């Protein structure tokens, strides 16, 4: 499987969860485990560009696929990815434990809806639990991320109505 652009061997142990494999075999500890039963969304990663729960998937199932974890969004010395930047600007994180999962869910959301309506924002983040923020700042961060994200579709539809910053 390819993880953040680098080819890796899948683990020999067939029952190894993808979340454990990423964290403990590959050292990508930015993927967090909050419930291990697929509800909290902390372990969200992108599989071929779409958000999935890495705690509900065996690592061997990811063979032949491309996984993006939070570490793969922006190179260590590069500026933050627009979604990360938006979470920073809008105080969209406190303890930071749920944050990688939220950020990747929002990346997935904005891929689908570059200019989401408030309902699409709520829907897009409604698979992730946060116990610190009360979500208000995360909603603001999603809207801000849409502004910061260069979109090929900008100039069409709702995006064209946005005032220039």
């Amino acid at each position, binding site marked *: 499987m390819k993880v953040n652009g680098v080819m890796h061997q899948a683990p020999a142990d067939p029952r190894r969860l993808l979340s454990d494999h990423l964290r403990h075999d590959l050292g990508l500890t930015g993927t967090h485990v909050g419930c291990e039963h697929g509800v909290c969304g902390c372990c969200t990663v992108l599989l071929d560009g779409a958000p999935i729960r890495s705690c509900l998937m065996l690592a061997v199932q990811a063979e032949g696929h491309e996984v993006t974890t939070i570490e793969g969004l922006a190179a260590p010395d590069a500026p933050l990815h627009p979604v990360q930047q938006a979470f920073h600007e809008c105080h969209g994180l406190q303890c930071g*434990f749920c944050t990688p999962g939220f950020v990747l869910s929002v990346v997935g959301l904005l891929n689908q809806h570059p200019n989401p309506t408030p309902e699409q924002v709520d829907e897009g983040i409604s698979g992730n639990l946060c*116990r610190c923020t009360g979500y208000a700042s995360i909603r603001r961060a999603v809207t801000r991320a849409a502004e910061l994200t260069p979109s090929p579709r900008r100039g069409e539809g709702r995006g064209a109505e946005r005032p220039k910053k």
Partner: protein
Amino acid sequence: MTTRWFGARVQRVEDDRLLRGKGHFTDDIHEGALESYLVRSPFAHARIKSIDVSAARALTGVVAVYVASDLPFGETDLPILIPHPNLTHGRTQRCLASHVVRYVGEAVAFVVAENRYIAEDAADLVEVDYEPLPVVITPEVSAKAQHLVHDGVPGNVAAEMLQEVGDVKAALAKAPHRKQLRLRFERGAASPMEGRAVWARWSESEHRLTVYDSTQSPTSIRGGLAVLFGLPESDVDVIAPDVGGGFGPKIMLFYPDELLVPFAAMRLGRPVKWTEDRQEHFTAVNQERGQVHEVEVGFDKDGHVLALSDDFIHDAGAYTPYGIILPIITAAQVPGPYRVPNYRVRFRDVYTNATPTSPYRGAGRPHACFVMERTLDAIAAELGLDRVEVRRRNLIQPSEFPYDLGVAWQDGNRVVYDSGNYPALVERALEMLGPRPAGDHVGMGLSPYVEGTGVGPYEGAHVQVLVSGKVVAATGIPSQGQAHATVWAQIVADELGVDVADVEVTSGDTRKFQWGVGTFASRGAVTAGNAMAVAAGMVAEKAKHIAADQLEANPADLELVDGRVRVKGSPERGIPLAAVAVLANPMRYAFGGGTEAATQFTPRPRPGPPLADGEQPGLEATGYFSPTGSTWAAGCHAAYVRIDPKTFRLEILKYVVVHDCGRLINPMVVEGQIEGGVAQGIGGAFYERLAYDSDGQLRNASFMEFLMPYATEIPPIEIDHIETPSPLNPLGIKGAGEAGVIPVGAVLAAAVEEALGVPITEMPLSPLRLFELTR
């Protein structure tokens, strides 16, 4: 001190690494550690007849399996953290149960293996023969004492406490109106997104124990480990790295794993780690909030409260490791922002066969607020008066501070409100709430509240200017997301006249700062924040004295601005703070970075020894702040809700908060605390119910069935601040961590009551419960 940073919406310095996935949580640490798993009781109350670990020990990959008899401290009761004279029958569990288990989830055996998968396989092979005993599960059942949770605790009563201000009996007898209410609040669970975790390493060559723990109090863990393992404190380091939310339960210590993991690491000579899974978190981590109140209130025709009697039972759970702090706080906080001239409160802290209780964000206060606000709504209903008007007539006025309530507070002192403006909070909340939305089944709720914050005994801080001019600061108490690294940098930056980006804060690492108490009770900003100001102020004074020699000026004429110490009025006459840091350390050997300026052949401005009597090298200082009493924050929440009359779905149409935590260090951070607290309050009031059955089984121990709100359940929250500085600390600040959660139950109960026209006397609510209540 200039105030460039204090009060500003400074963006957080901790965000970058957390956003890049470079946070450092306890389970992120491995370093060749063995992994472990706890065998826990599936019974709420049972005698252990035998434990057989032979099959588990024989499994390939298992390194050790421990039961109580394997532990040198196996027969030691864990400490009662906060002893109290009224806690006459305090009981704590042992690290591993060997005779009786008293709640589902109580630890029985500890398995250490090459990896977690094997440890869990081995745990399945541990054979425990239990003889079930009668189960006591609600506080009401416990108070009847048909069965006992502990032999030797008559009536299941751990503690009883009675306090009276004035003469309640006489005042009730004379009151023109009287009303009785029975109010019930169920348990809740804090549920931080990161469960608990511990990692430990013993170095034989250095004789050093290093423990990473997702705790709210590393200094206390360190002290306890040293005592229990017979080590000098100076040989034990405890670090709370990034902690994924705390909300109270991580202030509890010792959970069994906090002893077992270091013990196994010492015994086995290899690092050992343990990470809780979500299912065990539901039963093994402390909960809170279960109380039943019997209230009698006497009042006059205008709605003035003349006397209040509250007799309540508090659900301790199976043990009382945290003492009776929770019911003490409830007893102290029932009157809230109101005058209660005659107040009598009695509580009994009763054992049940459920997970022990200790503070969860709000800690005794949401239930206290619920009791008083439900009582005032009942008075208004009885007299046909406006609910807000009844509150106005009973509020303590700004002229009445300091206001002595006459009852005991959690720090051993009496409750004395230091400052506040409660009427202004209520009026501003009403203004923000605006006109009532149109439509049927709409209700309004409003609740002011107070919160005792910033309890002692003390916190400390160390601040040092490095020769690079950068500043490092450290305090003992850890962060669980409250932006300590940012807000303390703001305080230090102002004192030293540097950029906030040049201050690096470490918190919760005993290697950097070994003294302190912990992060709880909305106390961090008050205690550690003021300690930071004290320490940084000492550094600034020292810098002025050293620079004064160089600049041939009086220290009193100097100021610290933009990273320099300079003469007031002559800003060109100055010296960089980095150079002052060099000069603060007279040296023989230069090591680059401009340090040659402090060597012995460089002319010195004054005669005598390089370090004068009483001077210490380094541009650094350690300072402490120990408050005389708690600071009392306050606020007012108000909301409009609509209840769907067919589905009983809750819709929060508007929710407003006016908050007063004294001077705000960083409004962005405070608003984040409030928004998160309100969300937790909404969850606790309407979605999250711990469904224990009569056998003591928690039937919904998963996020599938314990319904923590998602974004779809939480409305936008409008926030405003007023600032009445606390007179009790130099920075004038009060705590803010728990405020958001306190009045939410009271507000929603009042609003739902009005929307549906049925009395609400319990928490939590749910669509099903509202359906039942309206039948």
